[in-house]
Structure formats: C-alpha cells, structure tokens
C-alpha cells in the first residue's frame, strides 16, 4: 500500500518552486479559464434563484396565473430552476473537460515529473 497519509506524495524530493509555477503563463491561463467560467456562472444562477425566491415571496398572484390546466406559472418557474441547474451542470462538465482538465493535467505532470528527477 502506498503511504499517502503524511502527504509524502509530493514531499519526497525538494519542494517544487510553487511561486514560480503560480507566476508562469500556463498556470495563469488555467486560473483565468476557471474564473472566467465559474464566477459569472455563479453570479447568474444565484441571481436567477434569488429572482425566483423574490417572485415566489412577493408576487403570489403572478405565480398563480394558470398556464395549462392546473399547471400555473409558479410550478413552471420552479421546474425551470431544476432545468437550469441540470443545464449549468452539463455546461460546466463540458467546459472543464475541454478547457480545464488538459491544462491542469499538463501543469501537474510538469510539477510531478520535476520532482521525480
């Protein structure tokens, strides 16, 4: 069994120069790609959720407007929150798989390869 309990996976050789990696262009690009996706997306879904909560809280009549049979705006609006959650999840998985993972893997490979020497 491998001993990873004491975090030795990294600490075997001299520590990599983390500040140099952090300042490097590849890491800066990875950081930018992550933030450029997750920050606006978080702002969007929080605002969208807050809008729903506020409408549910203060606009009962609007939510009670019937659409099809007994299905009203409130139920559709609520179900749309489910849909948006599923869609954002899917978008993130795609984005992370194509734009984040390859770059992260490459940087990690460089760091861990360096230590192996």
């Amino acid at each position, binding site marked *: *069994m*491998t001993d990873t309990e004491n975090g030795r996976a990294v600490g075997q050789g001299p520590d990599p120069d*983390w*500040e140099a*990696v952090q300042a490097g262009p590849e*890491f800066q690009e990875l950081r930018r790609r992550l933030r450029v996706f997750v920050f606006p997306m978080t702002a969007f879904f929080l605002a969208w959720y807050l809008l729903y*909560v506020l409408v549910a809280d203060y606009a*009962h009549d609007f*939510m009670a407007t019937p659409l099809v049979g007994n299905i009203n705006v409130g139920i559709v609006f609520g179900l749309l929150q489910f849909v948006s*959650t599923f869609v954002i999840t899917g978008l993130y998985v795609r984005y992370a798989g194509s734009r984040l993972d390859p770059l992260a893997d490459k940087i990690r490979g460089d760091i861990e390869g360096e230590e192996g020497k």
Partner: protein
Amino acid sequence: MSGTLHLAQGLDAINPVLNFSIFGAFVLITLVIVFRASRNTKTAADYYAAGRSFSGPQNGMAIAGDYLSAASFLGIVGAIALNGYDGFLYSIGFLVAWLVALLLVAELMRNTAKFTMGDVLAFRMRQRPIRAAAAVSTLAVSFFYLLAQMAGGGALVNLLLGIRSEVGQNVIIATVGVVMIIYVLIGGMRGTTWVQIIKAGLLIAGAAAMTVWVLALYGFDFSGVLADAVAQEGGKGEALLSPGAQYGINEVSKLNFLSLGIALVLGTAGLPHVLMRFYTVPTAKDARRSVVWAISLIGLFYLFTLVLGYGAGALVGPEEIANAPGGVNSAAPLLALALGGPVLLGFIAAVAFATILAVVAGLTITASASFAHDVYTSVIKKGQSGDDSARSEVRVARITAVVIGAAAVLGGIFAKEQNVAFLVALAFAVAASANLPTILYTLFWKRFNTQGALWSIYGGLVVTITLIVFSPAVSGSETSMIKGMDFAWFPLSNPGLVSIPLAFFLGWLGTVLSKEHNAKKQAEMEVRSLTGAGAEKAASH
C-alpha cells in the same frame, strides 16, 4: 367524521412486525457489508476517507444518501400535501445549492485537503488556532443536525412502528444509536458510505415507484393530481398551487422565507458531512463526477416529492394527514398505505429509519474526524507525525464517535417532544455563515489570512447562534421551543439574511486589519488546488 373513521383504519393497518422485519433485514444486510468493508480499514485514510477508493457514481449515490434526510423526505412531502407550493420552495433551494459545491468548492477542496475542512483552511495559515476554529464550527453544525435527526426519530417510531409508550420509544432510539455506532466504529468511512449508497438506492427507488403509481392512477396527467388535491375538503383549495400559504402571511414571514432561501442555497457547500464526502474519491475529476451524480439523483428525488406531496394531498387528504400521529410527517407513509397497503407502508417506514441511520452515521464520522484530526492531533499533540500518532488518531476518532453517538441518543430521548425543526435551519445557517465565507476566501482570495479566517468562523458562529436564541424559534411564540417566556427581539427564525453578509464582512475586515500574508504557502495551495499536483491519492490495498 369520515376522516376520523378512515384514520382509525390507517392506524390499524400499521403492522409493527412487518415494519420491524423489513427494517431488520436492512440492518442485517448493511451490517454484513460493513463487516466485509472493515477488513480493509487500517489507516487514517481508510477510516476517514475510505482509502479514497470510491468511484464518482458511487460517491454521488452516497452524497444523495447523506443529504436526503428523513426531514427532506417526510418533511417536504408533508409540507407540500398540507401547505402546497411552499413545500416545493425548500426542495429548489436544496437542489440549486449543489451548483455552489460543483463550481466553487468540490474539486478545489479535494485537491487541497486530506480529511477535514480544517486541512484546507490550515494550509496557508497558522495551524493551531485555525484548526481549533474549524473543529468548533464543524462540531456545532454536526451537533445541531444530529439532534434534529434523532429528535425526529422519536416521532417516527410513534408513527411507523405504532409504539406509543415512552420507554418503548426510548429503547428504539437507543437501538438506532447503537447500530449507527457499530457502523461507524467497525466500517469507518467505507462502511458508512456503503450504508448511504444502499439507503439512497432504496429511498430513490421507493419514491420513484410511488410517483409512477400516483401518476398512473391519473393517467399520467399531473394536472389531474393537482385538481384532486385542490378539491379535497378541509384543505387550502386553490391556494395550494401558488406560494404564500405558509410564508406569505405577513411582511416578517416573507422576509423570513427570503432569509431561509439564502441560507439553504449557501449552506449546503459548507456542511461538513457533505465536504467530507469529497475526500473519498481518488481525484478531483471524480469529485466533479460525484457532484454531477448527486445533482441528478437529488434533483430527480425532489421532482418525485412534488408528485408525492400533491398525491398525498389528493389521495389521503389534508385532514387525515394533519390528524394522524406525526402530523405533517405522516403524509408519505399514509400515501404508501393508500397505494400499496401495509407492505408498501412497511417498506417506506423501513427506508425512513434507514435514512435516519445513514445520515446520523455520516454526521458522526465527520464530527469524530474533525475532533481527532484537527483538535487531538494538531492542537493537543501539536502535529507530531508518524505511524504511531496516526494509529492513536484513529483510536481517538473511534472513541469520539462513541461519545458523539451516546450524546445523540441522549439528545434524541430528551428532545423527543421538543419542536426542534429550527435546528436544521440553524445548521444550514451556521454552515453558510461560518464555513462558506471562510472556504471561499481561502480558495479564491490571495490576501486572506489567519485573523480573517478566525473572525469569519467565530463571528459567523456567534452571530448566528445569538440571533437564533433571541428569535421566535426559541421564545415568544406558540411554536417556540421555550413556551411561556418571551426574550425574542430578533424577528426572523432564520438568521441567514443578517449573519451571512456579516460573516463575509468580518472575514474581510479581520484580513485587512492583519499584516500576515504567507505568499509561498498561498502559491502552493493555489497551484495544488487547481492542478491536483501532490493531492492525496487512492490507497492501493
């Protein structure tokens, strides 16, 4: 009158022997699995993180098992049956919250920490004070949540096993506690995870079967279910279909709902037992996959509860639910009885018990890990490392688990008749106020430091608890915990609206007032959190 007549039949149909046997079978099967899993539990990484050997889908199931508590099953179905739309609002907050975990927390935490939230925070800060603070807030959240679960257990025994005597109920609560301690002691995280996976499977399958059944009765016309729920006598009529029946009474209750909504969406990603689940998978990619699975399963489950809630309103009726023992919590079991008779009721009752068991086990292992890993090893033993101390840490974690389990049993017995529903809201509010700001600042803000973290954790914790103590949840109203006294000056039972922004502010203020900044460790943490370099790997047995 016809309602009461029907109710009497409902109570007679509860067959304790049948319910016990189904639940007993669940306990027996899971115990066998836990014993088998325990053979591989040797190191701290095994005990706390199941050797990081679970796959994404498995962990996603376990997250659903950890997250879908008895409160969210019985409580939400009942709330929709009686109050209609307002019950649905809960489930949306509980689900959307997972996006915070997916986008901001899960992968970065998995890459940075070993076992606990304290690991992440302590990475670039002064170890001892920060670990102590992280442990205090972890223990507080776990304890509030645990107490709520165990107190709910008493009512469930009454409802599902037909045990009315005080002593009988206490014996059942104690038995549940003992079984839970056995899971945690013997199986560690691996055993606990399997219990949660099995429970999630049963719960979701049971809810799915009932949902299809309800819809089939109406020719798969959801609108028809709604029409019948509205038409039921003694209910809220048309008001069931739109928000406001519960929270729309006055301006304070509306504000209270807004506050709850914010705490739900921001609290989930700060719940310690949820965070700990991310350490049981081998890589950050698996952590992502597990959140995707969790979102799918939890989302699906909450869609089922929407149908089940209105279905219970339509097929059982609000009067009968409100008058049954267990009140609002009896909606799902009574619906099961109406659909599939005593056998389905027994199955749903057993699943509800399994739910309490699994959630309590998850909380206990989290709290014990936090105490042993953060307080015992890092604060008391001052971080000595080596195999000896790792072994003694696991021993301390096991002892802590027994103590916490015993406290949960006692709490469950004493809080049985109390209205402790506010404890779940409190746990979410503390998680959103004390934990989430600190985690987000640590992961994303370069300048953040020890003083900022201490201010946001302790500040968030103290503000939240103070506001709750002086809120109508504790005194001054008919549904308060302490009746007949009134020292409430804070109008909202849910403090999130005030406590969350305040905790973010305190974290910022504490940081800028301190000069401390460890650029080297910050660089290491950021690189490791984004790339997974040097992250804890799976143990290969």
